[in-house]
């Protein structure tokens, strides 16, 4: 039946002022919490890409995505579940250099989590790890329990679809064809 699950909404838009507001209004009206949000220029010049995750029912997702897609400056909006996507989040962890150095099995830890040291000075050290939520969270928990984490930040999800269909470029080329006809 109608159960909530995590959806990833991918939106391509023109790069105009105030678009994020237009999108979040639609989530707010339907009382959907935005879990993560990531915005950046896309591969196509002048086109911005939003990746938003939210827990919702499928039926609700259908309606919300249609309402987003309808906005004048939105080129294309669609949603996927995790199976359809390759997705990642990136996390940064700041820890005390002294405590970290004294920790047992530092090298194994770094290898086990596929983490990297980005910055190191006498006071603190910054680790970076990308992965799924559960993976970045696991490292956070392990560090918290052993030496404590001074600062922690995780990005919004970024995602790429696995399927062969390229919705935006197909749409854009269909549009070009129409204009040239």
């Amino acid at each position, binding site marked *: 039946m109608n159960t909530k699950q995590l959806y990833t909404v991918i939106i391509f838009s023109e790069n105009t002022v*105030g678009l994020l*507001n237009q999108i979040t209004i639609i989530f707010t009206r339907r009382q959907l919490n935005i879990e993560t949000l990531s915005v950046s220029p896309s591969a196509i010049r002048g086109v911005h890409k939003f990746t938003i995750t939210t827990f919702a029912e499928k039926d609700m997702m259908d309606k919300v995505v*249609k309402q987003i897609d*309808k906005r004048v*400056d939105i*080129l294309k909006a669609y949603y996927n579940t995790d199976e359809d996507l390759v997705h990642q989040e990136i996390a940064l962890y700041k820890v005390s250099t002294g405590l970290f150095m004294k920790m047992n099995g530092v090298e194994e830890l770094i290898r086990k989590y596929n983490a990297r040291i980005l910055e190191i000075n006498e006071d603190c050290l910054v680790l970076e790890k990308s992965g799924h939520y559960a993976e970045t969270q696991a490292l956070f928990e392990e560090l918290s329990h052993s030496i404590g984490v001074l600062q922690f930040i995780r990005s919004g999800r970024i995602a790429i679809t696995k399927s062969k269909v390229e919705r935006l470029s197909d749409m854009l080329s269909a*549009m070009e064809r129409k204009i040239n006809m």
Partner: protein
Amino acid sequence: MDKKQITGSEALLRTLIAEGVDTIFGYPGGQVIPLYDCLYDYSDRLKHILVRHEQGATHAAQGYARVSGKTGVVLVTSGPGATNTITGIADAMMDSTPIVVISGQVPSPLLGSDAFQEIDVIGITQPITKWAYQIRKPEEIAWAVSRAFYIASTGRPGPVVIDFAKDAQTGHVDYVYEKISHIRSYQPIPETEEESIAAAASLINGAKKPFALVGQGVILSGAEKELLAFLEKADIPAASTVLGLSAMPSDYPLNKGMLGMHGNVGPNRKTNDCDVLIAIGMRFDDRVTGNLQAYARQAKIIHFDIDLSEIGKNVAVDIPVPGDARETLAAVTRLLKPASHTEWIHSFTADEQEEYEKVIAREIHPGGDRRLRMGEVVRKVSDAAGADAVLVTDVGQNQMMGVRYFRYSRTRSVVTSGGLGTMGFGLPAAIGAQEGAPDRTVCLFTGDGGLQMTLQELGTIMQEKLNVKIIVLNNHYLGMVRQWQELFFDKRYSATTMENPDFVAIARAYGIRSRLATTRGELDESIAEMFESDTAYMLVADVETQGMVYPMVPAGAAITHIILEREEVTRN
């Protein structure tokens, strides 16, 4: 192409003219003085109607748009001028009315600094517009303004806001008009697949009891003729939403009346009896569907709409037909087999008779020395106004009585606030309707409550010498709320009684002829007097204080749960 340096203000006015604008509803102020100064030179080409409050400008633009099919234009100053337009913008959004609202804004270097009369117009209006854009440089004018008209008027129409910084009005620009007729991120008309046309036709061809629901989409796409051809070929009875009224003439044989909370009995009951329900350019509003769990569960549903986000929003649809109704209706009609559903159509008669006896006859022929009833006033005015007249209403009992008992022969004859239900809409909307259809008689029915929300627009009527026929259905109550209190709140009339001014004296103070009608004789005389000349008139009809609008489907009830008369409330 003429290309020379002109001011931003002039560039804006020239773009308006190029977009076919000849009328503007507005109100000046500090941040649009340069624009108004320029308008002074363009007054031969752009008629400016000075309203008395900016909300009035937006409703007038809506009335203008609804009767003429053209985009209504509003011009106001920043800050309070802009915030006063919000209700009208929201109303236009709900009712798919094309208007462009241009608000002045503080000079761009001051933006974000809480300058005098600065307000975040874009932020406020984004949720209630199709598009909202701030012009900060004169170079943007040609592009942004033409784009505004393109967006407002195409696809599912709606309001657009242009926030116009003062320095962009006074700055100079090499102006060339550029017509926008394509935006790559905006597809006004969705593609229609052959399969959905075929599937719709085949479902209708197999139907024994088809029933069509006509929404404003039919009027907006100009599909009135296509609608009748469609209905006639397959012999399909139809009913309309409030906003769909006048898409079919009132006396059209397949027109079975109005849907919804105060609609006709037959259309509501038959929605739950038909086998194929064909919705055309309507959005299954809760005032039409009642309880969705008990709505048309037995029927297969076909939904024609231009707005993909409406399809499946409230009601699950078996066959969606996206597209422009004018084209999709014609395409489906070509595949229809001529059919006849005499028995099914005849089955509406029993409901019609029941409604006539229990509701309509009592409302339009109350007779005796009873007090006037709203329905009889509406019907008498409608008969005297002639079939060509435009109905404008305010909101409340007067609105429901207006749309129920007025009669239409021509499309674009109903101007009313449907989705937002805005009290105060009527008077300014009637002003706009008169501007938009100068050759038609415009009859406004308004309540004593709603009239007083935008009463000041009588000044606009006076100044513009507009021929608006105003009929005040004065029941001395906020009647529609009182009706709910009577039915569902034990007659506890909390804040619904109104001590009213002498409306006749008010009208006369504005130089508008006016008369009070308490008896049937006075009613007949004043109606005759009202239509005697081509000037404004205010007929104040003193109607029964505790009248009720029936039939009524209580909010949230199944549409077959219809109350027809007072006693039934407790029984049901």
